[in-house]
């Protein structure tokens, strides 16, 4: 996984020392809510960032963050420590977001058409001289392309992992990634 995405939470865990993280996990697995809250406070921002980037919607990201941690509470007893907790939460969060996207969207994950000059505008009038920031630019990408870009370039998953998680064929995922990068560069005047 991308060191950038996981490093901050891993570093915090390391600073808090691994033994205490293990202790919190063990206590939370035994049902101690206070211990689970401590884990939540360590990892929630990273998971929120993931949800926000994948959906492009703040309200939805908040709901998804709740869903992720409620599911984490339900499933914590199956966490065996073979990966770091941050990795486990991240994978769980990605699955929750993707499930919601499959349920909520009428169309499947939308892709950038090879013929499309630019992704759809976010809906606000844009002065030609105004430069969109990356977050707004991400939001304007079609959901499928945004998903692939976020998972690969920001969160650090491989194409094979992305294919397994999203059901998008690896070749399609690669092509969408390149188009997403080009689209973002155009939107950001880079």
């Amino acid at each position, binding site marked *: 996984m991308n060191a950038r995405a996981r490093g901050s939470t891993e570093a915090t865990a390391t600073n808090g020392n691994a033994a205490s993280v293990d202790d919190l996990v063990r206590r939370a697995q035994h049902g101690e809510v206070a211990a689970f809250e401590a884990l939540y406070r360590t990892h929630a921002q990273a998971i929120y960032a993931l949800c926000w980037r994948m959906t492009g919607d703040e309200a939805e990201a908040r709901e998804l963050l709740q869903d992720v941690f409620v599911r984490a509470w*339900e*499933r914590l*007893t*199956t966490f*065996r420590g*073979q990966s770091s907790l941050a990795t486990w939460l991240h994978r769980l969060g990605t*699955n929750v977001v993707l*499930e919601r996207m*499959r*349920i*909520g969207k*009428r169309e499947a994950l939308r892709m950038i058409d090879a013929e499309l000059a630019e992704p759809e505008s976010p809906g606000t009038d844009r002065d030609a001289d105004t430069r969109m920031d990356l977050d707004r630019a991400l939001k304007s990408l079609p959901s499928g392309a945004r998903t692939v870009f976020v998972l690969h370039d920001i969160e650090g998953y491989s194409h094979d992992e992305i294919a397994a998680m999203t059901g998008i064929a690896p070749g399609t995922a690669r092509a969408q990634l390149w188009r997403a990068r080009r689209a973002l560069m155009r939107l950001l005047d880079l």
Partner: protein
Amino acid sequence: MARHTLKVALLVVAFSAPTAAAAQTPQDMPVLAARRVSPTFAITLWNPAGHVRLVAWDLDSLVIRGRVDASQKFMFGAGENGVKSAIEGRVVGTEPKPSELAVWVPRRSRVTVRTESADIEGVDVTGSFYTVSGAIRVSGTATSVEAESMKGNLDLNANVPWLRAKTGEGHLLLRGRPQDVDASTITGTLDIATATVLRGQFTSVSGDIHYAGAPPSGAILEFSNHGGGVDLLLPAAASGVFALSSVSGIIENSLPGVRPAAAPRAMRITLGRGDASITVRTFKGAIRLRPQ
């Protein structure tokens, strides 16, 4: 002419047969409610006795067909985001007579079904299914399934990422392609006849648990049983690290050519690349590894 008459007769018979059969199918039941709904709406359904069948379809509509006993009444209420429907007795306190419901829902909707003794069947439907003593059968593809019964049998044969199934003395059968599973019984038998579970918690108090198949790579499976046994039937290609422990139950390994590290009440076996993690704990139930 006789030949022509015979052909016509045969055609009549041919078309009559399906019609006759159709008279027995849900489509033949009268429509109780039909309504356009949003693709992700929620439906809550209550039918104490009889049968409830839910089927997902690719229309943004809800259709409920059914036969309601004369002593019962069909109730239906709809809001913006959801629908509630119930079969209630006309006279409070009387024993409910069986009613049959067949419900078609949009594929992305979420259903909550409760019954007392009515059986529940779901096809391609996502949601929660609860019955006191009826049977629950789920099949097809869903995004999540929760199935609970006090004593009924559960037959779950779905392609679903997340599945939770609980029953007391009923038989719980897992098939299909579930990935993340939490399944338990109190005294009933728990049979896992699928090898797609990546994260699984299988628990019983005194019912036996049977798992047949090769755990997928990376799977983490936990089996807990107090007094019932845990049987793992493993094919030759099975791969994983099996950590078995019992406080006072026997641990038997019948896998050919395998000599595990063993202590009096614990055994650890690595098969193949050891890329799945299987933990089995019992208090006094027997643990058995057998070749499939």
